[in-house]
């Protein structure tokens, strides 16, 4: 796996030019290379003023939900409870995502910059970085190279799908167990130990580290008005080699596939956003956090999984639903029992058994499972499965009649 970024020259004070931003300090960048590429953090943007700059920048969360970054921070900053907490979330339980680990390996200092800048903006007194152990190692090394990040505590994440869900993250920090928790209040009001808490994905933090230096106008020189900046995409599936690409916002999906050396014409579909994402055509739409449906696909957690024409999309979906059912934390009944029931029904559909009533049963189980849990694991699973029924409608028709015109299985 290689990153697409090319090491840029020394910083001009106006930020990296083009779309190669997050890896501009080069491979496995130490503090020296990091400062050479980006320069120091700008002091005038390291306090509460940063939140206004982030609002102008239009940066959205890169962990999946694409929520406006400034809004989460403004909520924490305006809390009347003192002693806010900021958590960098690098738990990458999504099997199709590897961009967060790539970022922590090559640009740990940029992530730490963003963590420090965000903490300064919301006046946080506790800072955490949470990731699977492979991602923590480079951060541990980075912390020995600088003196301004002594407060940052590293917390290991287990390798489970739900470990990165915000309430599971705080649960892991507090108790060591990374399962979601029932919430009736927002984390920005009552998070870790009752403190106002901000949880940002590590790539989001890296962008904050750049906006704190070069400003909102620079950030917007990549991407479009409705989806500014760049984002990392983990591309996998029927591509010559799985890869992480930094792409501009609002990029045509076929451009991303071609940049990964894949020919969109050989693909029948992409799963965009991750296992909680949606199935879509391999060309004709743009990857954008905002924009009309059908013309835009949500990048979610920055995942693009390519499905070759030889593979059956329903079999691939059944595999994903089975995996997600296995990843239930088994705390909430509708998820614990509903997802396995949904997976069984999908196995029947993929195998061409079940008959015409199966479709109604799939929809019934979806309604019974979505929205009834402490986290959005069941909702995301049902949404992804529903997008498969819609996108592979012709295959569904064949399968309900007992046939399939493709080989089975997942690339």
């Amino acid at each position, binding site marked *: 796996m290689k990153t697409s970024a090319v090491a840029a020259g020394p910083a001009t004070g106006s930020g990296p030019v083009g779309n190669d931003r997050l890896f501009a300090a080069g491979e496995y960048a130490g503090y020296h290379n990091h400062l050479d590429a980006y320069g120091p953090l700008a002091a005038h943007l390291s306090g509460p003023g940063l939140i206004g700059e982030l609002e102008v920048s239009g940066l959205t969360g890169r962990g999946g939900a694409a929520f406006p970054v400034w809004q989460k921070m403004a909520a924490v900053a305006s809390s009347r409870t003192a002693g806010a907490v900021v958590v960098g979330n690098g738990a990458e339980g999504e099997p199709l995502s590897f961009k967060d680990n790539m970022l922590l390996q090559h640009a740990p200092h940029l992530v730490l910059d963003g963590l420090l800048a965000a903490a300064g903006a919301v006046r946080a007194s506790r800072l955490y970085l949470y990731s699977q152990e492979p991602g923590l190692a480079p951060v541990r090394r980075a912390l020995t190279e600088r003196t301004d990040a002594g407060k940052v505590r590293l917390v290991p994440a287990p390798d489970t799908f739900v470990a990165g869900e915000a309430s599971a993250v705080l649960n892991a920090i507090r108790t060591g167990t990374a399962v979601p928790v029932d919430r009736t209040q927002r984390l920005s009001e009552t998070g870790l130990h009752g403190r106002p808490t901000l949880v940002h994905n590590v790539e989001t933090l890296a962008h904050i580290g750049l906006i704190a230096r070069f400003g909102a106008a620079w950030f917007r020189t990549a991407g479009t008005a409705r989806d500014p900046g760049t984002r990392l995409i983990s591309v996998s599936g029927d591509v010559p080699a799985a890869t992480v690409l930094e792409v501009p916002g609002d990029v045509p999906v076929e451009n991303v596939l071609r940049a990964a050396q894949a020919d969109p014409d050989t693909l029948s579909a992409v799963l965009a956003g991750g296992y909680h994402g949606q199935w879509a055509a391999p060309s004709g739409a743009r990857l954008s956090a905002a924009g009309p449906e059908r013309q835009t696909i949500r990048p979610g957690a920055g995942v693009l999984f390519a499905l070759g024409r030889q593979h059956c999309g329903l079999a691939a979906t059944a595999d994903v639903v089975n995996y997600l059912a296995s990843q239930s934390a088994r705390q909430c*009944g*509708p998820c614990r029992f509903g997802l396995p*029931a949904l997976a069984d029904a999908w196995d029947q559909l993929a195998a061409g058994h079940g008959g015409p009533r199966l479709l109604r049963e799939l929809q019934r189980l979806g309604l019974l499972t979505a929205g009834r849990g*402490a986290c959005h694991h069941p909702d995301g699973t049902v949404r992804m499965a529903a997008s498969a029924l819609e996108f592979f409608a012709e295959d569904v028709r064949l399968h309900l009649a007992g046939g399939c015109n493709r080989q089975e299985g997942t690339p």
Partner: protein
Amino acid sequence: MNGSSLHIDWTRCDGRGLCTELLPHLLVRDDWGYPLAADPSLEDKSNVPLAPDDGPAAAEAAALCPRLALAIVQRRD
């Protein structure tokens, strides 16, 4: 709209079914015995809106739930 809702903590609920007996017009049981909002159009299936008349029965359900999985919460929409 303001008012109160019956919040279901799914991490605690194990489908004993007492709430569905006390609030039959609000909650039915799903395939596995867990409480299911009787109104299928409800978006937020974890916070079931309560009418003023539901108050006493909902409070009783919350107090009697053997798993302490129910709470009356103020809606913030």
